[in-house]
């Protein structure tokens, strides 16, 4: 840990990928290599990314802990900090504090089928655990990824979707909202809950990991229940506005639970016991 709990690590932007017109992925490496060697994290954890002078913004680490020497983050240009981040170039400096929060219980998923369901910009917080499970592929049974976006241009990680689509050990289903397709679109057309119901993955010995906009979650949950998933076998990662990242600034709580300390990963069973402050 650094000498001050508020001091960010200084990171150098090593690579920038333009995922969509307003979504970017940065690969960041530690300017201080000693800090980089000591740094560890697990799938599901998040950090505070900053442009010094503009402020901090909260995102999950988007790269897998199995990939050493760097971290990646994916963000949409939306507010002051993310717009400032988007103006940066390779070689520029980004501040990073973390890792914070809990993790996906990936060890408990060994020997099971994994069903990842994501919508739009919610694939980045799940990409970490997807790659984590793919890098430890032999520990899991079938891996299915269902990913939807409003339009083809809104799909993030296009190069990785291609790779996952080509892999024999991954079942990838991509979909875009009606009207969002291009003439050469080969994936599905329709909303995620509908496409999931059509694909009807088995719930036997399967864990579902779900992340997306509230409206997608609302209509996907009944489908998962219909497929036979238990509340304890459905996981999601929440985001609420945060400042500190470690339970002091007082704004990310959902009832008595702090997203930054107790989350961001929750089972659906846990969510049902909480008020809807997310």
């Amino acid at each position: 840990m650094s000498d001050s709990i508020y001091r960010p690590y200084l990171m150098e932007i090593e690579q920038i990928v333009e995922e969509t017109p307003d979504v970017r992925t940065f690969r960041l490496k530690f300017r201080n290599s000693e800090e980089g060697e000591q740094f560890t994290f697990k799938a599901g954890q998040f950090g505070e990314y900053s442009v010094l002078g503009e402020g901090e913004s909260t995102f999950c680490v988007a790269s897998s802990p199995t990939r050493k020497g760097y971290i990646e983050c994916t963000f949409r240009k939306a507010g002051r900090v993310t717009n400032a981040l988007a103006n940066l170039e390779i070689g520029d400096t980004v501040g990073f504090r973390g890792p914070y929060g809990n993790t996906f219980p990936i060890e408990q998923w060994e020997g099971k089928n994994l069903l990842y369901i994501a919508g739009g910009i919610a694939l980045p917080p799940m990409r970490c655990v997807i790659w984590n499970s793919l890098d430890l592929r032999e520990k899991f049974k079938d891996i299915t990824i269902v990913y939807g976006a409003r339009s083809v241009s809104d799909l993030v990680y296009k190069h990785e979707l291609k790779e996952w689509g080509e892999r024999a050990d991954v079942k990838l289903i991509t979909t875009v909202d009606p009207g969002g397709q291009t003439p050469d679109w080969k994936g599905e057309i329709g909303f995620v809950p509908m496409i999931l119901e059509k694909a009807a993955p088995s719930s036997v010995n399967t864990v579902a990991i779900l992340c997306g906009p509230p409206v997608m979650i609302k209509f996907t949950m009944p489908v998962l229940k219909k497929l036979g998933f238990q509340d304890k076998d459905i996981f999601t990662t929440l985001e609420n506005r945060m400042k500190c990242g470690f339970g002091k600034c007082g704004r990310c709580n959902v009832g008595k639970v702090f997203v930054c300390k107790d989350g961001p990963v929750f089972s659906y069973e846990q969510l049902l016991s909480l008020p809807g402050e997310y």
Partner: protein
Amino acid sequence: MEATRKLIRRQSLEKLYNALSETRKIYAPVMAEDKQITYCYNPSFAEVTFDHIRSTMSPKNVLFPKVENLFYYTNEKTESVISVLDLNKIPEVVLWGAHPCDAAAIDVLRSIFCWEIKDEFFAKRLEKLVVIGLSCHQSDEYCFCTSTGLAPDSKNGSDILLSRLQGGDYQAEILTEKGQSIVDSLPDLFEPVTGEQVVITEVKQKFDHRKVTEKLATSFEHPFWVSNSLRCIGCGACAYLCPTCACFDIQDETAGRKGRRYRSWDSCGFGLFTLHTSGHNPRSVQSQRWRQRIMHKFSYMPERNESLGCVGCGRCSSGCPVDMNIAEQLAALQNI
């Protein structure tokens, strides 16, 4: 350590005050011409009031400044340099004349700032702080310390607690090692107690905080929150006046290539507090924010931080521009 009692003469208080101010900064309450009570750094002893019921602002600023610099930075083209602050430069401070509610608030703040991860700024300021508490010989209709498990002569948080004696001298209860070392360094000022009675005000209990906590566990969706917050204008005054409110914002401020990252007081009563960039807001209306304020202090904190988030000072109610009275609301809540 076991508390001991001494007598300190009215005229010796000035000597104690001046002796302490030789090596430390003193943060003490001063009454202005308009009767506003303000905690100030290093006032002369003559300016310090002993007759205030409550200061307008709580003295929490001494441990949790309204604005606290977290670090400084310099941005070059690609390189940035961060300079952290030297916390050893934080001075030794005496909080003088804090009433028992404000002294007890220190422990509440600690339960947040030192919750698992220790906030180094708060911890260092606390380490360098000595609290000379002052029991209450008077109170008003807004006081409700006895409803939060405290009393006008509670010792929690004070290193030395002064209580007025009938004749105008003071009883000094030495409660901690820090307090004892002050007494040891100024033995001439402290005399054996005489048996003279202390003057302590009576504060009527308005609600039972255990009942409130119990009730809150099942009343998240109760219409109480809407009907009791319709008046609230979301000004946040309650949070800024509160001695235990610890929520903060973090912002950057830059001039040219140099700047600072700082934290500043914030309030859960503000709509922007929880607003997501997407426009979604988990607490989008004032009733949800009022519920959060009460729930945090009386339900979440007792469970998560093992400390009630309220000391009954009454400032949130006496300072509320639309006269929302928390003690009245909680008295009503425990019976809904």
